[in-house]
Structure formats: C-alpha cells, structure tokens
C-alpha cells in the first residue's frame, strides 16, 4: 500500500518537476547501482565460468564471464567422487529435516504464547527471551554435546537449534495480528487447541512460515562449523560446505577431493585441477539457496520488517 503511494507520488513528481540537477542525479544513480550489481555478481559469474571450463585450459588464466573451452567434466568428476556425493546427500537431509522440525516446533510454541489465557504464557516467553542474552559459549556447549552422546551423530545438526528466539517472535507477532474471531469460531465448533493450531492457525501462518523456512534452510545448508566441531572424524556425516572448507584451507587437512585429484593425476591427461574443483564445489554449495531466495523475497522482506521495526 505504502509502495503504491510512493510509486504514484514519484510518477507525479517526475511529470511535474524535472530540473537538470535532478536528471544528472538520476543518471549517476543508475550508473552507481549498475556498478554495484556488477561488483556483486562478477565473482559468481566468474566462478561459474571457471567451473564450466576445461580444467587444462583454466590453468592458463584469463577467464572472466564466459567459459573458453566449455566442458562438463568438472561437474562429472565432483559428483562421481563418493565423498562429495555423500556430503551432498547429508546437506540435503539436514536442510530438509532441520527446516521441517524448526518450522513446526516454532509455530507450535509461538501459538501457545500467543494465547492470552494461557497460564504459562509469560513463563515460556521469558524462558526463551533470556537465551538471547546468555549463552554458555563454545566449551560448555561442546562438553554438553559430548555428554549427551551426540558426537558422531546426524542429530547434532538438528537438536541444538530447533527453536530460535527470532523465529519465535516473528511468528508470534504474525499470529497476534490474525483476527481473534477466526480462532473463536474454531472454538465454538468444538476444536481443541491442538486442532485449532493444525487446522486454522498453521495454514494462515504460511506467509511468515515461508520466511522462517527460508532462514532455517539457509542456516542448515550453509553450516559447516558444527560438522568441523562434532563430526569431523566421521566422513559419512560430512556436508558439502565442510568439504569445501577443507579444500579452501588445504594447508594441513588434505581433503578427499584433492586426494582423489592426486590419484587421478597419475594418468597422462589432466582432466581436473584444484582450481576447477574449487570453483565447481563453490557453485554446487552456493546454487541451491541462490535459486530459492528470489521466489520468497516478498515473504522475507515482510518477515524482516515485522521482526525488526514493529517488534
């Protein structure tokens, strides 16, 4: 609504008033913003071009936005590598499971603390809010995970982060904006709290849950530190981001991809190089989230605003 008003205001002003200074400003503004887009996009397009270029040719350098010798060999190599294939599966699995658990649990708790009549409403809310200010820190957390027996387990990716306070607050704000009559009418029909939540509130919350799902998916997909900390000795539980991190910090940890590269190099023709593998892994690790977020832009812009400005 405000956007429409802003657009009509600007349309009117452009018709009525357009001095030379204003036009110069406009042109400079467009040039600057275009440059900004170039600076943002160039690294990605460059990496993409290198990943699609034949490895033996990339070594010579000079590749910018377009592959010189087009080749799918790098991608074939990366996905034929058992470790990376497995790491991709784990990355997908933790993203799907983690997001589903977080969305459902956050929405459920948010619903309970949005019910004004709930006797434990304040207690539950404050218990969560306090954790925004205080956390045990790295060492105590590590010892807890160890004592719970979660080291070398898939669940260490899911359990510690089920509900984030920020997510809880934005879902609660959203539920509190829903008309009370919708919930009341469900009550009159005899629905209990759980059924009201599942059948009425959850579907109505889908816009804000899309935001939470995106934030959680991005967090899960991009995580590597928990793999490094808890599961680095178990290659079966490694993720794509961690494999990439190992390649980037190849100083003392030899990554699986490079070991494979060293082995494959024994033949006469060089098919892959560390440079190409690095670029290819970077693209594989970055693309899923880059593809998803533009479709959810409308939702997360709203979600950020609800959580950020209005509280």
């Amino acid at each position, binding site marked *: 609504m*405000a956007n429409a008003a802003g657009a009509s*205001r600007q*349309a009117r002003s*452009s018709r009525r008033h357009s*001095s030379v*200074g*204003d036009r110069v400003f*406009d042109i400079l503004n467009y040039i*600057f*913003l275009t440059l*900004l*887009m170039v600076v*943002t996009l*160039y*690294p990605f397009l*460059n*990496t993409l071009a290198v990943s699609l270029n034949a490895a033996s040719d990339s070594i010579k350098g000079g590749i910018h936005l377009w592959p010189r010798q087009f080749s799918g060999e790098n991608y074939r190599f990366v996905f034929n590598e058992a470790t990376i294939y497995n790491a991709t599966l784990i990355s997908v699995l933790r993203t799907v499971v983690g997001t589903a658990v977080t969305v459902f649990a956050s929405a459920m*708790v948010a619903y*309970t603390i949005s019910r004004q009549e*709930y*006797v*434990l409403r*304040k207690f*539950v809310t404050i218990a969560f*809010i306090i954790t925004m*200010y*205080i*956390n*045990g*820190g*790295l*060492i*105590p*957390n*590590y010892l*807890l995970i160890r004592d*719970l027996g979660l080291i070398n387990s898939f669940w260490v990716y899911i*359990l510690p982060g*089920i*509900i984030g306070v920020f997510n809880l607050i934005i879902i609660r704000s959203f539920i509190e904006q829903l008309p009370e009559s919708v919930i009341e009418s469900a009550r009159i029909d005899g629905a209990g*709290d759980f059924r009201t939540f599942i059948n009425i509130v959850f579907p109505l919350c889908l816009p804000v849950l899309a935001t939470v799902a995106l934030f959680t998916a991005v967090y899960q*997909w*991009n995580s*590597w*530190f928990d793999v490094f900390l808890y599961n680095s000795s178990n290659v079966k539980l490694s993720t794509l*981001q961690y494999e*990439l991190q190992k390649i*980037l*910090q190849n100083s003392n940890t030899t990554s699986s991809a490079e070991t494979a590269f060293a082995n494959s190099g024994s033949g006469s023709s060089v098919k892959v190089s560390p440079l190409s593998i*690095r670029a290819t892994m970077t693209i594989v*690790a*970055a693309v899923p*989230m*880059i593809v998803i*977020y533009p479709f959810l832009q409308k939702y997360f812009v709203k979600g*950020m*605003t609800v959580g*950020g*400005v209005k*509280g």
Partner: protein
Amino acid sequence: MENNTALPTSPSTSKPEPGGLKLFFKRLVSQRILVLMSVPFVIWLFVFKYVPVWGWTIAFQDYQPSLAFKDQQWVGFSHFQSLFSEDRFLIALRNTLAMSGINLVLGFVTAVSLALLLNEVRKVAFKRVVQTVSYLPHFISWVVAAGIIQTMLAPDGVVNELLKMFGVIEKGQEYLFLGKAEWFWGIFGASSVWKDVGWNTIVYLAAISAIDPAQYEAAEMDGAGRLRRMWYITLPGIKPVIVVLLIMNIGYLLESGFEPQYLLGNGMNVDYSENIDIFVLKYGLQQFNFPLATAAGMFKTVVSFILLFSANHIAKRLGQDRLF
C-alpha cells in the same frame, strides 16, 4: 481481548496467592493441551541453552576432565587473572573491538546510503532487480564467500588485474592482500559490506515507505530538489530507526563474528584476524585449556549481556520498545 475469561486477569505465575495456587493448577489442567504443546520445548531449552551456562563453573576450577564435579579443585578468579595477562587474549580483544567497530560504522553508512539511493529510483523494475541482486551474497555461506574473496584477492585475481589496468601497480608487483596483516581489518570490512549491505537495506526501505508522501509534495512545492528532499525529509524520517538500530548494535560490540575471521585468517595475518571466538577455539579445543577458554567465553557473554541490557533500556526510553 480478555472478554471470555471470567477469572481474574494477570495470572502471575511466579507467586500465586494462597487461594490462587489452586486456581492456577485448575487452569493448568484445563489448558493441558497448550502445556503439552509448549513445555517439552521448555525442557529442550533448559537442556540445550541453560545447562551450558552451568559449564561456566569450569572457569573457576582447575578442571580435570576425568574427575567428578565435586572432586574438582576450585581456584577462584585466577584463570581470569591469567587471561588478562595473556598477550594473545589482549590482541584478540583489540581485534574484536576494532572489527565490530568497523562493521558497525561501515555497515550503517553503506546500508543507509544504498537505501536512500534505491528510494530515488523511479523505474520500479530496475529497483527490484537491484534489490534482488543485492540480497544474493547474504544467502551464500561464509565458506563460499571466503573462497570467492580469496580468488578475487589472489596475486592473479581480478583486483590485482584492475590495479594493473589503471596503472596503480606494475606487472610483478601484485599484492598478496591476505598476507598483509595490517590490511586485514579493511578486507574484513569490505567483505562484510559486500555480503550484507543489500540485506541491511530492508529495514531502512521499510521505514522510508512509511514516510508521509505529503511531506515530499510540500517540499517539491517549495522547490526542493532530489538531494534536498533526501537530506531534509527521507533522512530525518528514518532517523528513529537508525538511532535505535545503532544503539542495539552497540550491544553486540563483542560479537564481531567468527566465520569470516577464521576462514580468511592465516598465519601471516593472525595478529589482526584472531578475535575472541577464535582465541576460545584455539585455546579450548586445540590446546585443551578448557578453563582459560571458558573464562574468555564467559567474559564475552557477561560484557555482551551488560551492553545489550543497557542498549535495550536506552532504546525503550527513546520510545521504541521491543526491538531486541
């Protein structure tokens, strides 16, 4: 709002009155579904978020992993004393403050400027494209970002190529950017801006869209140009949001991040890249000095807590409540 509750409002769960205790349990039983929906997660919260705070006791012990809690030897604040006489910690503290300070100032200036410029774009399609593109780096991991930054800053990377093209350096004089320790803060600041400037505009653009269009029309009648309108209407219009966000961010002064410093850091720039989080990781999990690392982590949390609480208090007094 409370029209359907015949019971007295303000269910003070902390100290119910004698008669109220019975009432409290009666209501608790009648709301058992809500209880079942939330209390398991409070238990989860207790285990994963509150129990680790108990681990702070390690900072006051001569911690031996093999011993039970009651057999540990207590040493008071001696680990904190050695922490503050440890050079590496003081360097880490300096780096933490410097990098979060840079992030704070640079982050604000760039995000507000970009929001102002985006607001002046009249072609809606162009504006949307710029916005979508500017959000992109926010959605990649720091691992990917660090890889890209390393590639761009490498001796044969695009930054050196550009410098050669504009004649700033000759061939053979290429910089090893990440090898220059004193440049690290700048590289960190630029990288953070690249990654998050678009994302940080969201809040300011929302605040700008709430400004009354009549103000702009009135200014236009008075003959104010674009820059004047930006300076005298848009900027003052979002000033409350800027002030509150600034204050809130001061609360995170000791949270300078961990991933960019860890991933871009190396042996050559360690004196400028190592912050408290990396210090904790190194001393705790690589050298197994649990008490010292826990003390460093605890120091960070306690100072952050004080800063955040005061920031919240100031923000509330400025009339913008609930903005954590």
